[in-house]
């Protein structure tokens, strides 16, 4: 068997140089040559000339480009690390250059809407599962790539960047994607687990953001650790129910990408979603908060989508529903909290 490419080691691609993308590119660069895609030309220049991203030094093995075609041709494995709001657009711009031999892994903890043409969320009475896409579903829908995976887990970008010990989950239906992810990412400070339930792992990362906002709000109100323990465990139950309804398996939710990530984000001031909740509780309004943040807090969009989904499904998800009212309908956090305290939860754990 002869092949053109086996003689030369291919590079690994990273699309999107936000804080998480940068951290992952750095880890990848320890073992491989990395080509990163950024939309802003100043950023590409900064990467190529100064080995920096917004002033932060990065690994020398990283080369920047603005050309999707060049990246796709040079890389067999590509990591997409862009926020969900831009995900579809970015994927579409890469789609013409992706082929069935590409392995595509993403690290985005958000959801996309998939509505009939010309409709917006506010026009829809309710939405069902078909109207919601996880990022891997976006990739499968928009491109011909089929060997798709995702990265999820307690991976605060800042800590990864500093090289502190951490672990992640690579999830894919394809063993070879998991193995490739492990081969590329694993270092003595970064442990990589595998999981075949990709949707469950994606949903873990997505849904935990809702709880993270709520956790930030509790902290902002100056409430103590008892309250947080209550929230995290009830949040877990809600996450499991929602995640199941969306097609994930319970096993994944109690793994690293589920509980692991939930605990981390609910305790960390480094988390954007947590910060949103915290500032809300301190009396700021949502538009002001969003205005002053550099990067997207995925949880806000997730709350909106999940609330519509829950309504269409006839399910109850008290934390999400109340958070929605706080974020978009000016309900006071104190009132939402009171409502939750009165909510008739009767059984502690009923999903196992």
């Amino acid at each position, binding site marked *: 068997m002869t092949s053109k490419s086996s003689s030369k080691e291919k590079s690994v691609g990273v699309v999107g140089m936000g804080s998480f993308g940068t951290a992952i590119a750095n880890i990848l660069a320890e073992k491989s040559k990395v080509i990163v895609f950024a939309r802003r030309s100043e950023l590409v220049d900064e990467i190529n000339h100064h080995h920096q991203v917004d002033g932060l030094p990065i690994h020398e093995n990283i080369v920047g480009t603005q050309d999707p075609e060049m990246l796709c041709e040079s890389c*067999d494995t590509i990591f997409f690390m862009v926020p969900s709001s831009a995900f579809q657009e970015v994927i579409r711009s890469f789609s013409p250059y992706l082929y*069935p031999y590409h392995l595509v892994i993403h690290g985005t903890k958000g959801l996309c809407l998939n509505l009939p043409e010309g409709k917006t969320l506010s026009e829809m009475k309710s939405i069902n599962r078909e109207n919601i896409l996880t990022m891997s579903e976006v990739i499968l829908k928009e491109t*011909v790539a089929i060997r798709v995976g995702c990265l999820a887990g307690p991976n605060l970008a800042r800590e990864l960047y500093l090289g502190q010990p951490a672990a992640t989950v690579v999830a894919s239906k394809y063993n070879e994607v998991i193995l490739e992810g492990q081969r590329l990412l694993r270092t003595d400070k970064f442990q990589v687990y595998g999981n075949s339930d990709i949707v469950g792992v994606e949903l873990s990362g997505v849904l935990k953001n809702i709880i993270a906002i709520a956790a930030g709000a509790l902290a902002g109100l100056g409430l103590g650790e008892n309250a947080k323990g209550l929230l995290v465990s009830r949040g877990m139950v809600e996450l499991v129910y929602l995640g199941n309804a969306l097609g994930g398996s319970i096993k994944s939710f109690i793994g690293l990408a589920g509980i692991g990530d939930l605990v981390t984000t609910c305790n960390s001031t480094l988390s954007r979603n947590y910060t949103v909740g915290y500032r809300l509780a301190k009396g700021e309004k949502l538009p002001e908060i969003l205005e002053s943040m550099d990067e997207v807090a995925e949880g806000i969009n997730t709350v909106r989508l999940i609330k519509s989904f829950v309504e269409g499904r006839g399910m109850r998800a008290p934390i999400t529903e109340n958070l929605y009212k706080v974020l978009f309908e000016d309900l006071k956090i104190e009132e939402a909290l009171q409502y939750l305290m009165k909510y008739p939860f009767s059984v502690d754990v009923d999903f196992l």
Partner: protein
Amino acid sequence: MVKLSKNRKNFVKTVAENSKKSILEITGNNIDLLKEELETTLYREKLRIKQNPWAVDPDDEKDFWRKVRSSLVQTSTDNSLTKTQKKKIYLEILNDITMRYSEEIASNFVHTHYKVTRRIVTFGFARLLNAARVKGIKSIFSNQYTLQDKIQIVGETDQIRELASKGTIVMVPTHFSNLDSILIGWIISVLGLPPFIYGAGLNLFNIGIFAYFMNALGAYKVDRRKKNLPYLETLKTYSSEAIQFGVHSLFFPGGTRSRSGVIEKKLKLGLLSTAVEAQRANYQKGIKDVNGKVFIVPVTINYHFVLEAPGLIQEHLSIVGQERYYKERDEFSTSYKISKFLVKFFTKGSDISVSIGKAMDVLGNYVDNSGNSFDRHGRKIDTRDYFISNGNVTVDPQREEEYTYHLGKRIVEEFHINNRVFSSHLVAFTAFQMIKQDNKKLDLYSLLRLPEEDIFLVYVEFREACKMVLDKIFELEAQGKLQVAPHMEQDIDVIIDHGLENVGMYHAKRPLIKNRNGNIETQELTLLYYYHNRLDGYDLEKLF
């Protein structure tokens, strides 16, 4: 295929040899595991011979397994043998078994037979048809009607013909009736396609008339009673090797006839995986051009009437209703019954339509008439890329398992897209939904137990409901989600009459009739349910 029949002996041997290899791989070359597998096989085969013997079973079966047994027992008790000696004996036993299975599965295809039978089928059907339709028995030699008038073949007929001359076709039809096997045989010949090999249930070979046709049309035998590892591996290897050999093949991916009348939603992936495997094997051998390419062609068959419906739906309900042990039975069992059906079919006129779907590659991408694959955006792609990692074609069974699953999903989608709605489907669906609506509190089983005498639908309401469903069906057609038979473009009353006349027309108890007051009644609710199921899967029930 002709080539195959000439090389039959070598082919059977290759299949046996490769099956043996894959069994050894599965057992991890572990001698104890292999021994265990052999013992299980022996045990199951002995049980089958005792509990479920069929007329087609060869006479020497008992002897063969007795021999297997004695050499197994001898080897495991004989302490003087070394491990290598034992292994050698076990391998020999395995060899005997796969060789026997391979022989058994392989078709006894004779090319001259094929041609003759093909002519007999076409000629005979046409004669019968003319006798029935024109002027009675005297017109038996008239050519006024041909089978084509009764059986409409629509869809991508040119494409399949063209691709058959370039690559290897795997045809995957829906399966509702035992008649399908003969029907497809006829279609293949009418379309002027080269011969295909079939995987046909061994039970069909019990029936004289079928056995003749099947053997002649190139059927290989699939025995669903045998669920042991060596058998299943040999069967898969047979299919895979045949495809790699360039032989067109056909299998019913649903496995058996649809019991419930629903279009297959879950496919049996065993045989389907052989198509994926064969495609990869061809790429591995370095065959990159179209003659090594495997094309999947879904085919949807539509009937107004399925002879076996009463038995099938009973079986379905008893399986789903309570987990009762279920044994393969055959209502389509005697040559007499079948002949009777054929006479009725030709004399009374019940249309059948066969939709040939668009051809796909093994990943479910559409291909053009030259065999090139295209992605959803219309970009030409190379199927080989799916099997590549780090620049080379690689073997990854887990990956191929996922691909097979994906292909199965695509085939099911295509089945639904190619499904042609008949008037009988419309009336059955609408009537059943209305009855269900009137008895909202009942679950399916209580509903089906309602006494038929108590049920009737007022015609005016029924008509309205039919119209509503029909409108939605046309909407779905416009979206390319299904197809509609030409007889549906008439006045609604005409469509309903046509539907009532045709739905399950030869059953002793009719699923749907108009009573003296002009209202709609059912004589057999379970049958109505069966015919109603044909339109399952389009969310039409949400209209009610």
